[in-house]
């Protein structure tokens, strides 16, 4: 302990003098390391944003293949276990999830929400509306009344269905609200919504669609999704198979198409919209080019720092030679050198850390449109806008501190590796003849 404090007492003023009297070299070292740390951090920031965004999309839109029974089939049998196990053998297919759901299609949008009908013309019209406006006002004015279950909210992400229309079915199964789901469709993409409750109509609500009065079959939900419900579909057996990778969807569909399975009465389709898979692909291409840039960057930046350190070391060797001839202990000389390098590194870290701490965890519009190109147009845009907030928050956490730590660690590793190599080489150096 005493030895260490003694050593610091000796080495500190020498190192400080060396740094302060060689201002240009010190400034060069400082700015090189600062540039290295901050550019690396910026690079990591972009990488993290893209990665978080991809993960978000992937979890929000899992890659699935849906098997649906065709409507004409009146059978009530489920998909056979043999069939399930067959499909599970298909490459990339991992697990399945059997659900009951309705199929729906968008027919119109109105002030109150979006209207759907089922594919089979049975016209159980569904109104989707914002829970905080229309739904509230209907229930507050007493036009509608909650029969069972609960109101939809952000947590349950569910919807209400008409008790008169679905009442029998629902009552015949206890707890059906939790088990029944509604499948909403946009293009070839489907989202499942749980039914969280039923309501009944006290005074009819009049809706006009294309000048046709519409019955009061209303489903309320609190998200802007696209729904169409058919009562017969309660019995319908849909099955969802999850894929292990989003990028294997096309391949898997091809494979399934080539399969001859027994149940011709089931059709299947990918659950991932074209937009989503294009988006994911563009993100993935971006990520792989990022990896390449990263390697090039790593080589160049490491090269720059190593050249600086090597130049500095060669200069310092003259000092070491003098120290050796004056008989200074090796420990002190090495300590002074380490101290100098680490001081430059440490001081360079300060502005980087300040930069990181003061930077707002906000994703710029430019960055967002970069990673979502070419999908800023088209149907995906709405979803994208909705997710913007979520993305902002999830990414914010990953950026700044984590990134700066990683960048600092990276530069530190380069320095330590350099010092180790120098240590090994300089053990063999002869001070006498070398200038």
């Amino acid at each position, binding site marked *: 302990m005493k030895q260490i404090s003694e050593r610091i007492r000796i080495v500190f003023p020498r190192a400080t*003098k060396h740094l302060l009297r060689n201002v240009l070299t010190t400034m060069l070292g400082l700015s090189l390391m600062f540039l290295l740390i901050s550019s690396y951090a910026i690079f990591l920031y972009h990488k993290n944003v893209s990665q978080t965004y991809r993960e978000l999309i992937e979890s929000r839109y899992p890659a699935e293949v849906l098997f649906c029974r065709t409507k004409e089939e009146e059978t009530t049998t489920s998909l056979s276990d043999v069939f399930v196990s067959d499909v599970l053998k298909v490459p990339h297919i991992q697990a399945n999830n059997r659900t009951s759901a309705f199929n729906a299609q968008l027919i119109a949008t109105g002030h109150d929400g979006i209207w759907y009908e089922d594919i089979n013309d049975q016209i159980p019209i569904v109104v989707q509306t914002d829970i905080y406006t229309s739904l509230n006002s209907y229930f507050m004015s007493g036009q509608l009344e909650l029969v069972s279950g609960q109101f939809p909210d952000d947590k349950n992400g569910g919807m209400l269905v008409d008790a008169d229309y679905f009442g029998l079915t629902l009552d015949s199964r206890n707890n059906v609200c939790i088990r029944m789901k509604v499948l909403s469709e946009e293009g070839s993409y489907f989202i499942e919504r749980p039914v969280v409750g039923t309501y009944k109509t006290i005074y009819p609500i009049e809706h006009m669609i294309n000048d046709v009065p519409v019955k009061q079959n209303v489903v309320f939900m609190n998200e802007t999704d696209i729904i169409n419900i058919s009562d017969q579909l309660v019995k319908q057996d849909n099955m969802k198979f999850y894929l292990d990778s989003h990028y294997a969807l096309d391949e898997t569909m091809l494979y399934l198409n080539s399969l001859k399975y027994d149940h011709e009465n089931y059709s299947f389709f990918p659950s991932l919209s074209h937009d989503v898979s294009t988006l994911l692909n563009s993100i993935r291409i971006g990520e792989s080019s990022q990896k390449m840039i990263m390697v090039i960057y790593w080589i160049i930046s490491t090269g720059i720092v190593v050249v600086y350190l090597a130049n500095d070391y060669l200069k310092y060797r003259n000092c070491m030679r003098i120290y050796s*001839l004056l008989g200074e202990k090796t420990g002190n000389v090495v300590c002074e050198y380490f101290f100098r390098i680490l001081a430059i590194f440490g001081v360079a870290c300060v502005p980087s850390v300040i930069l990181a701490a003061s930077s707002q965890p906000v994703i710029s519009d430019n960055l967002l449109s970069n990673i979502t190109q070419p999908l800023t147009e088209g149907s995906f845009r709405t979803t994208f806008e909705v997710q913007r907030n979520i993305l902002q928050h999830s990414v914010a956490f990953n950026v700044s501190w984590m990134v700066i730590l990683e960048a600092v660690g990276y530069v530190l590793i380069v320095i330590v590796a350099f010092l180790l190599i120098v240590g090994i080489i300089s053990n063999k150096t002869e001070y006498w003849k070398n200038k």
Partner: protein
Amino acid sequence: MIDIKNVSFSYDRKRSILQGVSVSFSQGKTYSIFGPSGSGKSTLLALMGGIITPDSGEIWINDHNIANLDGRLIRRTMVSYIFQDYLLFPFLTAQENVEIAREISNPHENNGGEKTRKLLNELGINESLLRKQVRYLSGGEQQRVGIARALVTGNPVLLADEPTGNLDKATANDVMQLLIKLTKEYNKCCIIVTHSEMIRSQTDYSLLLDNGCLKQVETNLK
């Protein structure tokens, strides 16, 4: 003081530089070593400072066989060097350069700063030059700082390798006079490698190194 006993040395074990050199140097005396270029003069100085070790033979300084001592310890406590190219820390001031050597040799000495200043003044480095970084000093001034650095340590032996090689004649003479004067004053043993006749005539003894052997050729002692 220094006893070199039958020392042989070669860098590559093929061509021997020194062959059975035996010589003694004593305290308070000045020696000059001359000889053709490449004869091994610098090598001999390096051997005495423990920078390299002899292949055979022994070197004794103050009754210590330096083969048993760490080279840095020898240079810290027994032997100080003065170089043709001064080898000062260019970014440190004259005073700091001397202070560092003193600090290394005598870390717990009291009043060291005073001693350093006095010594530098004796060598003609005045107060304003003291605080200048040595890279801004002239060659002669730098070599004076080099000499002060060697004297401040309290080491009994000074080894100077062509100390005036980079200086003009007049300056070289001044510096040499000072070196020899202070060597006597501080009672050191000073060994100077030189090509200069003028210096040879000023030292007590003059030795010729040729063909790996050392011979005393002149004595200027009365």
